[in-house]
């Protein structure tokens, strides 16, 4: 029943003082040996639950899990820290890391290598990450992580809003105009100041027009025209082009020849991202603060 050596690997040699564990962990963190660092930090916590390094070790454990792509473990480690040390000076770091761990965009193998438009995929993790970041902003508005959290929240909100527009575009194709109107309305009511709002208004105008509800159409058109006069849906003379969403007007000759069998005539829907979308570049995760 002796413990095998590979279990020992990475643990400090000589007597296992608190100091020894912590230093070993620091070395491994710096040389991004995440697994070994995790092993040391957990050993430190188990043997010296109330030692001087206990709290710092728990913070660094969150960071190590995150860098090791163990997002769920990072989130639960952060939750544990928040539960154990609610008043701790650096508890805002734990909230921030929870947001970061669920901000999975671009981390999956598939998304990194193949060009995928995240705004068309499962919005679930984006919502979760947004909720964690907003917890941080609510509790610690002046935390040092607030600015980056703020930037990430804006990006997530844009992503969620754009997802709604994609769905609205599908419902145009399907002929379900009430569904597209409501998706547009959802953006206008829940995602103000996102670049998707101009498209949302255009969706509402187009839907009400197809439902021939002139009064509703006119109010939305007025809001669109005053706020976003340069939206591509407007012709040069400022009138709303109701065929805009259908897409390519001038069919190619091939289209007529092959009786429309050749070209795919998917309606283009509304996607003015080039015009209104602030480019966002995520930064790397920061190291936990020194005590």
């Amino acid at each position: 029943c002796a413990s095998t050596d590979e279990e020992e690997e990475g643990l400090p040699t000589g007597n296992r003082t608190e100091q020894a564990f912590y230093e070993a962990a620091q070395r491994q963190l710096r040389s991004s040996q995440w697994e070994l660092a995790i092993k040391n930090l957990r050993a430190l916590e188990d043997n010296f639950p109330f030692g001087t390094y206990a709290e710092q070790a728990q913070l660094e454990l969150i960071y190590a899990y995150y860098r090791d792509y163990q997002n769920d473990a990072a989130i639960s480690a952060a939750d544990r820290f928040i539960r154990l040390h609610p008043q701790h000076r650096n508890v805002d770091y734990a909230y921030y890391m929870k947001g970061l761990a669920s901000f999975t965009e671009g981390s999956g193998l598939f998304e990194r290598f193949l060009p995928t438009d995240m705004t068309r995929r499962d919005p679930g993790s984006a919502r979760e990450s947004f909720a964690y970041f907003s917890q941080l902003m609510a509790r610690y508005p002046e935390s040092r992580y607030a600015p980056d959290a703020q930037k990430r929240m804006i990006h997530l909100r844009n992503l969620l809003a754009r997802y709604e527009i994609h769905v609205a575009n599908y419902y145009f194709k399907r002929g379900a105009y009430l569904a597209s109107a409501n998706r547009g309305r959802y953006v206008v009511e829940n995602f103000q100041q996102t670049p998707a709002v101009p498209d949302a208004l255009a969706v509402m105008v187009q839907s009400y027009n197809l439902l021939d509800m002139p009064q509703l159409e006119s109010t939305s058109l007025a809001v669109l025209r005053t706020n976003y006069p340069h939206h591509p849906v407007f012709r040069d003379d400022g009138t709303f082009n109701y065929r805009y969403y259908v897409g390519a007007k001038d069919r190619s000759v091939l289209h007529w020849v092959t009786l429309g069998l050749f070209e795919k005539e998917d309606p283009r829907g509304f996607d003015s991202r080039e015009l209104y979308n602030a480019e966002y570049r995520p930064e790397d995760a920061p190291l936990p603060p020194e005590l």
Partner: protein
Amino acid sequence: CSLFKFPGVHRIEVQQGNIVNQEMVDQLKPGMTRRQVRFVLGTPLLEDTFNPNRWDYVNRVRDRDGEETQKRFTVYFNGDQLIATSGDWQPASWPG
């Protein structure tokens, strides 16, 4: 869609909006609160952001052959009070 029609393509029926009938509409009385109207007609699927004082009960069906039929019934409020209706049904006992 494409000019060449494939014979007998199976299309699905696309239904949109609330289903309203005369019996419901007849229960409307002027002055009713929004909660009462909602109880009678159901939650409206079209509450426009920029027109808070009107609820539109639209029922639109495009059947399998592409035939589109649409019915509409709108209720107007002043604050929390029902003041008028318009559309394809008239509340029978509506005064005047």
